[in-house]
């Protein structure tokens, strides 16, 4: 009977190898195609100069600054709120209808399309709160977008802290907040950092929400009220306007390299030895 099954099983296993090969090949193809054409466009001038002629000449420096600026604003607002929420959900709150409602809200928030965030950000921040197209408007919108991701990552990090640590701390007379501050958080540190890096990755890659809130004017943003054009928006405009293939490839290449670096960072933060509890 075994013989009859053999060839069918062989096909089964081969198809798995096929799926694997296909996926790796397509990723490889995409990366190779863009990087091979894009890295040649990336030079020191490309990274440090401002664009000329609508982006068909010059560099992409303002877009790099814009991306970092908007992301920084978003993270500055999202991290404290997410940390607070994660701590409360894990350490203080008991399962209840309220808790389930909050979790459901977070789940839905995580799934809302970015264009809907952009629509909301445009209506609420840009128009209603009169922020205009600005770094703040973009940052606030992105902050709401990464909130669920951050909270989930922070919660997981906090959950990996062994119960014994908490129990020992409480047994020694510390209250809940002292335990959180000196035992749980430092121990969860690598996981917290990983979560932050993941959220940064999401924020950097966002385009639909940013184009409707931070604008698309090609300018170097200085104040949070300035308009900004991030790298992703720049790539979109270059690609759809067909202004300069070379510069588009270059921008795409820089974005891919950024993602690679961020990924490396998560590997590092994950592998870091679990933070030692502070026992002063």
């Amino acid at each position, binding site marked *: 009977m075994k013989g009859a099954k053999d060839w069918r099983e062989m096909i089964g296993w081969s198809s798995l190898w096929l799926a694997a090969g296909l996926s790796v090949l397509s990723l490889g193809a995409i990366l190779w195609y863009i990087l091979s054409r894009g890295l040649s466009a990336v030079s020191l001038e490309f990274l440090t100069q401002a664009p000329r002629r609508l982006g068909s000449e010059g560099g992409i420096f303002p877009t790099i600054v814009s991306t970092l600026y908007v992301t920084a604003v978003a993270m500055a607002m999202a991290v404290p709120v997410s940390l607070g929420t994660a701590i409360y959900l894990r350490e203080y709150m008991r399962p209840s209808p309220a808790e389930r409602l909050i979790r459901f809200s977070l789940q839905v928030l995580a799934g809302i399309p970015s264009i809907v965030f952009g629509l909301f950000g445009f209506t609420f921040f840009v128009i209603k709160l009169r922020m205009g197209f600005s770094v703040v408007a973009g940052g606030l919108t992105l902050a709401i977008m990464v909130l669920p991701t951050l909270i989930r990552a922070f919660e997981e990090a906090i959950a990996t802290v062994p119960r014994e640590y908490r129990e020992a701390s409480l047994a020694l007379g510390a209250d809940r907040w002292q335990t959180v501050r000196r035992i749980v958080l430092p121990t969860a540190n690598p996981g917290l950092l990983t979560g932050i890096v993941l959220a940064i990755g999401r924020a950097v890659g966002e385009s639909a929400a940013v184009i409707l809130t931070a604008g698309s004017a*090609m300018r170097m943003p200085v104040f949070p009220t300035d308009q900004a054009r991030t790298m992703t928006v720049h790539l979109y405009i270059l690609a759809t306007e067909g202004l300069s293939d070379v510069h588009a490839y270059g921008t795409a290449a820089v974005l891919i390299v950024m993602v690679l670096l961020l990924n490396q960072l998560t590997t590092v933060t994950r592998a870091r030895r679990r933070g030692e509890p502070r026992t002063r």
Partner: protein
Amino acid sequence: MRKGLLISLLAVSVFFSFGCSKGQIVNISGSTSVEPLSQELAAAFMAKHPKITVNVAAGGSSAGIKAAREGASDIGASSRDLKPTETGLNKFVIAYDGIAVIINKDNPVANLSVDQVKAIYEGTITNWSELGGHNAQIVVVDRDAASGTRGAFVEMVMDNNDTIIKTAIVQDGGGGVRNTVAGNPAAIGYISIASVDNTIRALKINGIEATIANVANKTYPIFRPFIYVTKNAPVGAVKQFIDFVLSAEGQKIVEASGLVPVK
């Protein structure tokens, strides 16, 4: 603790910047056809006035007009004239431009009448062979509805009746149209004459070449004004910029960009 400090610092700086005077800013948004011109004008203007920053963004003519009316932009740039319903705005004509009907370089067709272009965009003519070209289904490329170029095209070619076929490929910006036509031998599209480059070919319309000279002497049939609109009468930096645009120096830049200056 450290995080709290960071937030307060950020909040303080945000509030400060709202009140601070940081040099004046002029925000322009709107037509992608006008955008290159606006960029050149802005660059020249900012060289003379280092304290003023001019931001140029795209979005389409209708977007620019809307932004100007709602106060999101100081100046709305449009590549079509205002509609009768668009009242309450100050209008400044800064240049004249023609709309070129473009085809792929491998397409042998050289000349079409306005009626033929209309028929193509309405879907009555569907194959290049009907026009003396190859046997290929015509791929019609259109602009998105925010586009002033589209508005002007509908006004002048489609007799102000939007009957462009529903199967037309819609591109977000003139460059997108040019790109699509350059890559597809059976495509046809329309862009600003100033945007025509050597990746595509511009058709003769009614036997007239699509050149800016022919727009100036009014022989080329498809043309439109480039306009800047503002909600209130311009003051301060906005007024300085518009005055610059309409001055001899500004109009020289208009001409250098391949457009017809306002006399």
